[in-house]
């Protein structure tokens, strides 16, 4: 089958959980042909892949959001809008429920120029009317510019070239989800969605924190991403996620529960389970497999480790992962220096399999996660884990209902420094506890989170598409 995978801002441009997963996924699905339809932020990244693409990837369609800025207006717009079209465009603006087929056709078949549209009187007219009814008290010029910057990427993507495939499989909602639906509409094919985290929720958190968004428009931006997710939730043939809670959120956000299913991530169990345990050497080595990025909350990790090292002298922290955010990384290095922490080691990107041999247990302090591979890998290698209570971490540590393997680590609220320090301290105190918890984790991974199991479920999914 020719599968078009739609990805946004990850594979094959940057390393990370989803990227790693995707790479292994494609490599293992030898029987299928894959087309990558990838959305990047900056056109300067074109062709700059950090992964060597597997043999069964036959084409890569790259689209970049900032290319939208270079679209030239084609003079004055000649198109006369039908009532249907005006209604759909209005719904799009008020982040309601536009008729996407009308929009698809407007930008794919009638080739409406997005720039010309945003400069047209029709656009202003719809905006004026919706502002009068929906936003009578907000700055009109701001609304105008916000609306333009909100719509430009969407309208640009709607007009982008659509690769032909047998099924469109989006790995997130948002712009990616929208493109998948566009592909499905264009060639009358089924659309699948696999969400690792909840895209909309992540955007929402980002927007709430963002300083550059005028407060009165935060709601608008958030609704905008909800609207984008809504398309694929409605139009997808099947929607998968990594754990039960995520599925419940998807359903809550409007996805029909009948098409939702959980497919857990899987890892290469055999390879990891062979890693020997660390010999006792008087030190307790803690590992963190994370990119240096704010969402991983490395700073809290460093602070917590600082507290731990006040109480225990024989601890070391290995932070393994590349730099995602230069500025944040610099702040982390500075923090380590400022706290005079000698036992924090930034290793950069390393081979986890060989490095794991030096670790006693691992830690994850993220503010947001889906189903972190690093926890699964740690378990497979019989290393317990201290994590924040995000994504499905608690489920991984304690097991789903019906899972009797027992605790495999400690779970504390995100950003809770004392809690993290205390959990690490407990973990440091007893080797036998670590061994027991590690064993529990390994058993759990072996039962539920093996790659073969995951691949088999996705293969079934593709078979359903065919049938």
């Amino acid at each position, binding site marked *: 089958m020719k599968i078009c995978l739609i*990805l*946004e*801002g*990850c*594979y094959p441009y*940057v390393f*990370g*959980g*989803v*990227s790693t997963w995707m790479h292994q996924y494609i490599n293992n699905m030898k029987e299928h042909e894959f087309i990558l339809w990838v959305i*990047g*932020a900056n056109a300067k990244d074109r062709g700059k892949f950090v992964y060597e693409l597997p043999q069964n990837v036959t084409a890569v369609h790259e689209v970049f*959001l*900032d290319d*939208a*800025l*270079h679209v030239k*207006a084609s003079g004055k717009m000649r198109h006369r809008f039908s009532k249907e079209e005006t209604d759909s465009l209005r719904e799009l603006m008020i982040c309601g429920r536009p008729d996407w087929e009308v929009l698809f056709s407007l930008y794919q078949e009638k080739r409406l120029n997005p*720039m010309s549209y*945003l*400069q*047209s*009187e029709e*656009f*202003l007219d719809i905006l*004026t009317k919706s*502002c*009068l009814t929906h*936003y*009578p*008290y*907000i*700055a*009109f*010029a*701001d*609304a*105008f*510019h*916000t609306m*333009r*910057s909100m719509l*430009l*990427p969407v309208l640009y993507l709607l007009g982008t070239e659509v690769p032909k495939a047998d099924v469109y499989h989006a*790995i*997130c909602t*948002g*712009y*990616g989800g929208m493109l998948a639906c566009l592909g499905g509409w264009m060639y009358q094919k089924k659309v699948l969605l696999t969400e*690792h985290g909840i*895209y909309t929720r*992540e*955007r929402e958190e*980002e*927007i709430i924190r*963002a300083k*550059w968004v005028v407060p009165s428009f935060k709601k608008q931006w958030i609704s905008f*991403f909800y609207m984008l997710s809504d398309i694929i939730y409605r139009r997808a043939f099947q929607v998968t996620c990594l754990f039960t809670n995520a599925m419940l959120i998807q359903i809550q956000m409007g996805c029909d529960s009948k098409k939702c299913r959980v497919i857990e991530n899987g890892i290469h169990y055999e390879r990891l389970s062979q890693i020997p345990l660390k010999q006792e050497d008087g030190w307790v080595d803690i590992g963190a497999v994370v990119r240096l990025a704010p969402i991983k909350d490395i700073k809290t990790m460093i602070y917590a480790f600082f507290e731990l090292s006040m109480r225990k002298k024989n601890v070391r922290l290995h932070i393994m992962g590349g730099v995602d955010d230069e500025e944040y990384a610099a702040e982390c290095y500075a923090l380590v220096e400022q706290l005079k922490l000698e036992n924090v080691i930034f290793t950069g990107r390393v081979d986890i399999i060989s490095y794991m041999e030096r670790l006693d247990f691992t830690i994850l302090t993220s503010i947001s*996660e*889906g189903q972190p591979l690093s926890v699964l890998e740690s378990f497979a290698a019989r290393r317990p884990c201290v994590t924040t209570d995000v994504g499905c971490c608690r489920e991984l540590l304690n097991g789903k209902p019906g899972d009797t393997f027992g605790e495999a680590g400690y779970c504390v609220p995100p950003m809770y420094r004392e809690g993290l320090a205390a959990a690490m301290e407990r973990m440091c105190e007893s080797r036998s506890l670590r061994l027991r918890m590690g064993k529990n984790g390994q058993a759990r991974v072996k039962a539920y989170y093996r790659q073969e199991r995951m691949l088999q479920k996705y293969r079934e999914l593709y078979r359903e598409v065919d049938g």
Partner: protein
Amino acid sequence: MAGIGFELKKLFKRRGLFAAFRAYGYAGVVCTGPMLLGIVLLLGVMYLCDTTGASRQERELLVCMITYTLLASLLVTSFLSMVVTRFIADMLYEEKYEAVLPSFWGSTGLMLMAGGVLYGIFLIFSGATLIEGLLMLGLFGELIVTWNAMSYLTAIKDYRGILLSFTAAIIITFAVGWLLLRIGVPHVIALLVAVSVGYGIMLLWDVVLLYRYFPQGSLSAFFFLRWVDVFLPLAFTGLFMNLGLFAHLVIMWTGPIRVQVKGLFYGAPYHDVPALVAFLTILVTTVNFVVSVEVNFYPKYRNYYSLFNDGGAIGDIMQAGEEMLRVLGMELKYTAIKQLLATALAISVGGIVLDFLPLGFNDLMDGYFRTLCVGYGIYAVANTMLLLLLYFTDYKGAMAASGVFAALTSLFTVISLRFSEVYFGFGFLLGSAVFFLVCAVRLNQFTRRLPYYILSIQPVVAEDRTGIFTELGCFLDKKLEHD
């Protein structure tokens, strides 16, 4: 988890600002200033000639020479004056005061060079004597610097300074002229020198004012040329307005009522003199614009535009827009009524008064006077609307309207030459009437869709527009660096 979210925040951060540019109004008004000043000086020179016993030939040659020089200098400066005004307004808005003076010398230098060469060539073939030619070229240069300095002074709204320098120019011209005539210098030379000294004083006065106001800067003198590329329609608007005002005079110099004074110096005194006097009637609208239209309209206009800048909600914007357009309509109506009264008065009473003045008015001239009074009256009101288009930054509309004005007044005047002499003034009158209609229709259309022109017209992504003038600026900068 992956996802781009909104990497396009740069786009969002960029917000257009709409500085409310009132300078145009003044610039437009004051653009009639030089004409008025020139007319007063011309009439004065005629008077001096008459009272000191100059020959008719001398008098007419003088009038021709001064008129030619005046019109040529105004035409040359007209291309840059509005753009320069916009440039200054932008620099003042951005508080880049040090960029202003270099641009003054840059623009002056360019116009002196281009204009000087053209006018110099004309003078060589004009049949003027060497000394006359040199005096005229000198005066031409002075006038260019002066008109350009006035664009700068209006931008800083130093009207008192301008008015004082006008007065000084007039008094000194008369004093020097009278003195030179007394010591027996021939009329043409004496009065050309006098006018040069008069404008020379005005030039110095204006430049001193400029230096007092703006700091000296080391910035590029040709930086402003970028503005010419971006606001090219504005440059043409300036040019067309002057062409429209002068063309009918020049065309008359080729027609049946022309008088060849000397060489290429032609005149049509029967038409010129009534035209000059009739032009004075637009003073009513000029003054009215400054004291009434501006005063009442500008606050509404600023309020409306600032609502776009400072977070006005849609309801407030709509209300402010209605209010602004209401005041605009009212002011235009008053302007038209006032000009109508003034024109009626000029036609009825003016005709009688003129017959008593030593200008040698006859029936034909009375006829031209009446026709041109109506023509200039219509022009004055239309010009007010044109200025308002510029306030609303409808540069393309303004360019089109002024283009119509220039083209039609010329065309109709040429056509009128085929008819009886009595109809010669109607060419300008008809051209102005069409100009009036175009302005009225465009202003009406444009103001109905203001939010569209303010917001939607802006490109989604800011782009730099450069062209030959920007390149010229870079070229000149490099040249100057090497020397």
